[in-house]
């Protein structure tokens, strides 16, 4: 790494870290949504200037260049915000199995690799003087996002969704065990009869089991894809394997998220059962 690259990396790091000081996960999510909303306003402004009949050509060019630069700057900002949000989400996972830990670290590294692109973008944006230049930069950034950023993000979010859901499943399993203990207590107090709860508890347990099966399917799929992509095995069949994986790769993250979504529906059904049990138990005890 030469001196210029080092300086760029340091500057990019300061720029990006600066954007994230004191932002909690909940606030980061709000910030992302708000920034996305702001982009809409910036794009509207471009259309407004373009359609302005009063402005002279020269003035229109100046204003349009500024408006496009402004919009592009906001898009760069949100891309950096997303990059850091994903990194923080990945960093939050601990006690992962060895292969998933290895994937997690490689994904964090791949997000850090984006920093140099953001810095180059930022520098080019500052140097822009004409509408043609800003349009070209927007086009370059769009291509980079399509070829690099979006594909990375798609896989990373699929991986995160699986791991986040594992935590949710643990919470749901723990909740079921505790509810069973409560029900044993009120059965012992002869407030509840076994037949009142047996069937619904079975349904709840089965809901969690189904959710876990779907989550495991999603996990297996995304881990396999990321493992092959991040740590390709060397050998005579490597190309063939890579081709197979590549053909699956495009649709896999979407399928993973579909499984995660279906698993979530099972969890929602389970919690509705918990709420029904809660209502019934409180009626029997005589609580409102």
């Amino acid at each position, binding site marked *: 790494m030469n001196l210029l690259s080092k300086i760029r990396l340091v500057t990019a790091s300061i720029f990006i870290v600066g954007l994230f000081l004191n932002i909690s996960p909940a606030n980061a*999510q709000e910030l*992302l*949504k708000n920034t*996305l*909303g702001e*982009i*809409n306003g910036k*794009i509207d402004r*471009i*259309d407004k200037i373009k359609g302005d009949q009063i402005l002279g050509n020269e003035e229109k060019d100046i204003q349009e260049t500024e408006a*496009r630069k402004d*919009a*592009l700057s906001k*898009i760069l900002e*949100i*891309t950096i915000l*997303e990059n850091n949000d994903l990194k923080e989400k990945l960093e939050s996972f601990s006690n992962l199995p060895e292969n998933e830990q290895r994937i997690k670290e490689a994904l964090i590294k791949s997000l850090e690799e984006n920093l140099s692109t953001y810095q180059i973008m930022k520098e080019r944006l500052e140097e822009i003087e004409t509408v043609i230049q*800003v*349009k*070209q930069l*927007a*086009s370059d*950034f*769009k291509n980079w*996002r*399509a070829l690099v950023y*979006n594909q990375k*993000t*798609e896989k990373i*979010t699929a991986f995160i*969704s699986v791991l*986040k*859901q594992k935590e*949710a499943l643990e*919470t*749901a399993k723990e*909740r079921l065990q*505790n*509810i069973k203990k*409560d029900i044993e*207590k*009120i059965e012992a*107090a002869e*407030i509840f009869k076994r037949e009142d709860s047996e069937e619904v508890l079975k349904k709840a347990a089965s809901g969690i089991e189904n959710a876990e099966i779907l989550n495991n399917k999603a996990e297996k799929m995304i881990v396999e894809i990321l493992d092959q992509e991040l740590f390709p095995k060397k050998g005579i069949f490597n190309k063939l394997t890579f081709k197979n994986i590549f053909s699956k790769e495009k649709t896999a993250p979407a399928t993973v*998220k579909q499984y*995660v979504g279906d698993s*979530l529906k099972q*969890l*929602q059904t389970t*919690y509705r059962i*918990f*709420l029904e*049990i*809660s*209502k019934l*138990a*409180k009626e029997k*005890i*005589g*609580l409102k």
Partner: protein
Amino acid sequence: MEKILKKFKTIEPKEEFKRRSLAIILNTPQNEYQPKPFEYLGSFFNLQKIMGLTAVATLLIISGLSFLNNKLIGPSLVSNLNQQDLNKEMESFNIQFSQIKYYDDSAKRIEVALMKTSGESVTKEQNEEINQILDELTL
């Protein structure tokens, strides 16, 4: 001796002494009446009052026990079935998923925004989709 004693009969205090003594006596605080403890309780607790107080105490005891039962004993039996906690957990699962869904939506949204910034034309369908995404995100 007898003479002397008869003389004593005629002795009277001086007028000034009388007035001063009377003023001291009248200004001295009088001893308050201190009833004996049982005498006081006896006068306070007549039958009517006893009946009334008993009723109030019974009412307080019953409502207190019922409150304890509802607020402490009942929920402690089913503390893991607290509806608020259950809803909170379910909501946190949904939020996790919506945070992931955000990335799918933003990728589309930003692609169109970059197309517009770079001067590329955007189809009507793309525009409509973006508006829908924005509506969902800002809800």
